[in-house]
């Protein structure tokens, strides 16, 4: 029984991290239609900025307040300056999606190389909230628990924001049918840029929280992008709830497989991915 609990708790903690890194990409792809393969680079930048601030004596949880808005502004400007231009020039939505992936690849390399120039390729990190918490018979690391807590809180806030606010409704309308939403008075260009900005914000926040649990380096981004893509497809494009659930499913499955053979965890992720594409291509919460 104790082992089962350990596996489930480890899965939930890992799933929290997966959900956190995926929600932003879900917004960017599901609504703004940009498969932002540079998503992981925003996570990396968020992690590095937190590390730099930590070295300067700033608490990582305070860094959330700096990194999040900063990433939003960068994401917003990026969409306005680059992706919006590509969108206007593209003859169709399919062409836009294709062109935006290419642009995002370029962005990936630009951000990564800038990070390499600034911080080099060495591994960095710091120790924060690295102490055990005993929950009955289960022991967990405080920083992992804090990450899980933030994931849940942020996801709930985002869900409420999308469900109840005027801007949230505009975002959902834009995700469903941008042309019609535009005719109904939604400023599509602004809404899509805000969505992309929110995606970058989520990636930045994920970077802050990940840096508390994992070592960081300038090449770390792509690994997280791949996981995020798997989770987004699993949960359904543009669905915050789907990414949330998808992250936890992947985390728990990964945990169970790791218990038996850690080497098979990535195999399990891709197996789920393939099965889902065959059985339910729109994802768990996709419409």
């Amino acid at each position, binding site marked *: 029984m104790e082992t089962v609990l*350990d*596996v489930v708790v*480890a899965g939930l*903690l*890992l799933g929290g*991290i997966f959900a956190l890194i995926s929600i932003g990409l879900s917004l960017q792809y599901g609504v703004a239609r940009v498969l932002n393969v540079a998503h992981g680079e925003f996570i990396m930048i968020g992690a590095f900025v937190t590390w730099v601030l930590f070295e300067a004596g700033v608490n990582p949880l305070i860094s959330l307040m700096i990194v999040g808005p900063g990433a939003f502004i960068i994401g917003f400007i990026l969409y*306005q300056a680059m992706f919006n231009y590509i969108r206007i020039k593209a003859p169709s939505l399919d062409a836009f999606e294709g062109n935006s992936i290419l642009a995002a690849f370029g962005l990936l390399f630009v951000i*990564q*190389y800038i990070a*390499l120039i600034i911080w*080099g*390729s*060495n*591994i*960095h*990190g*710091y*120790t924060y*909230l*690295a*102490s*055990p918490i005993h929950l009955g018979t289960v*022991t*967990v*690391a*405080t*920083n*992992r628990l804090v990450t899980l807590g933030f994931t849940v809180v942020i996801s709930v806030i985002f869900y409420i924001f999308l469900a109840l606010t005027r801007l949230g409704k505009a975002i959902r309308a834009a995700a469903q049918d941008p042309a019609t939403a535009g005719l109904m008075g939604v400023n599509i260009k602004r809404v899509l840029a805000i969505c992309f900005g929110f995606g970058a914000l989520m990636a930045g926040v994920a970077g802050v929280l990940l840096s508390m*649990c*994992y*070592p960081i*380096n300038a*090449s770390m981004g792509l*690994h997280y992008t791949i*996981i995020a893509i798997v989770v987004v497809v699993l949960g359904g494009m543009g669905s915050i709830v789907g990414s949330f659930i998808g992250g936890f499913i992947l985390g728990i499955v*990964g*945990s169970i497989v*790791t*218990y038996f053979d*850690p*080497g098979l*965890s*990535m195999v399990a992720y891709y197996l789920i991915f393939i099965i889902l594409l065959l059985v339910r291509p729109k994802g768990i919460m996709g419409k």
Partner: protein
Amino acid sequence: MWKIIKKYALPLSICLILLLTVIPGCGDEEEEPAVTVPVVTEPEVTEPEVTEPELAPGQPDDYYTRENIVIGGSRPLTGANSIWEEVGFGPIYKMWIEQVNADGGLYIEEYGRKLPIVYKDYIYDDTSDIATMTRQLERLMTVDKVDFCLPPASTASLFAAAPIFNKYEYILLGAEGGATTIMDMLPALPYFFGTLNYSDRYQIPVFADLCLELGIEEVAMIWIQDLHGIEYSGVAGVEFANAGVEVVMSKSVPPDVSDVSLLLLEAQDSGADALCMFAYPDQNFLIIGTMIGMGINFDAILVGPGGNIAAMPGIFGPNIEGLMFEGAWNTKSAPGAQEFYDLFTSYYDPGIGDWWGHILYWGGLQFFEQAIVEAGTLDQSVIRDLMATKTYDTVLGPTWFDIFGDGGGLLAIECHAGEIGQWQSGVPEVIDPPNIYGAKRTAPPIYPKPDWPVAE
């Protein structure tokens, strides 16, 4: 706002460009009248033929034209292995070349002068990809025809590169990486000279002896699923069995492992006295961080690559106390270690130091330099023969290679500056058992490892 920027940015930019183009043209000088220049046909001049003096016997064909020695390399400037270019062999070869050039270059007798080293245009980025690396090496040796070639980084890359160096008869002075599998091939690789110590030369045998000394009876191992992990766990299995140490857990992890908490709980439940991490820095740091976070501790913890980097205290703070690492050297464990450390820190931030390979790479390059100078030629086969037979004084003391048959060699164990290190009060100490392999111990080991400090 966006509209305003778009509305004014373009005209403003055009105005700015026009202004910048016009301003240099404005001046006080009077405009020169247009002049018709008569076409002057210059008389044909027959330039005197410059004939180089004839070459004396034994002088190379490029005796008069050679200006430098060209060193090339396929190195991981980006990608997963790029850390080694930054904190591994990278800073060492750059510092060596700068030192050589500051002295005017290497004196090559057959040229009768010192030749400086150029390298920057011939260091290609292998993007941490072995296939790219092998293609680039072929290019360096057949198209660029560099004089010497630097080693690639990582065990797997060395393994792939060794036959290429051998085929084109280039000396491969190995740096990051080493493998028993290469050792098996050495009799057929006369141009291979490995400097780094590794699993069975002689880190794991020394660690097994240390286990005997400290009374460690049961060990858990976590290893990465690649050549490095397979080799270290395999050698450990043999050495631990020989030492009577039981392996109670042996689990592998993929390079992109995201969570190791369950593995660590299993290792804890196994009752092991020691935990060995035979993985790379990404995985090893994740394991250490998770252990600290979950309060899982062992009487001894051996950290693989990454545990040796000088950035460890900055990342884990006081938690590093008592962590053992593969390596190892410090300023007391070799005759010229303090001098080398002072030189290194005069060039670089001490934070990029490496308490495993740096001193061995430096010693290897000093050895290589002396062999080239003594050979008095850039002919690799002559240099190779000297490297295989000579002993030179380096930062490591008297230095030589153990040669395998008629083939290549590995730095002799007597020249190593230590095999196993331990962080003690923020300083790396060598803790090899004192009675073996040249008595390199600089401090007694801390055993059992203290508990993780309580987080603030």
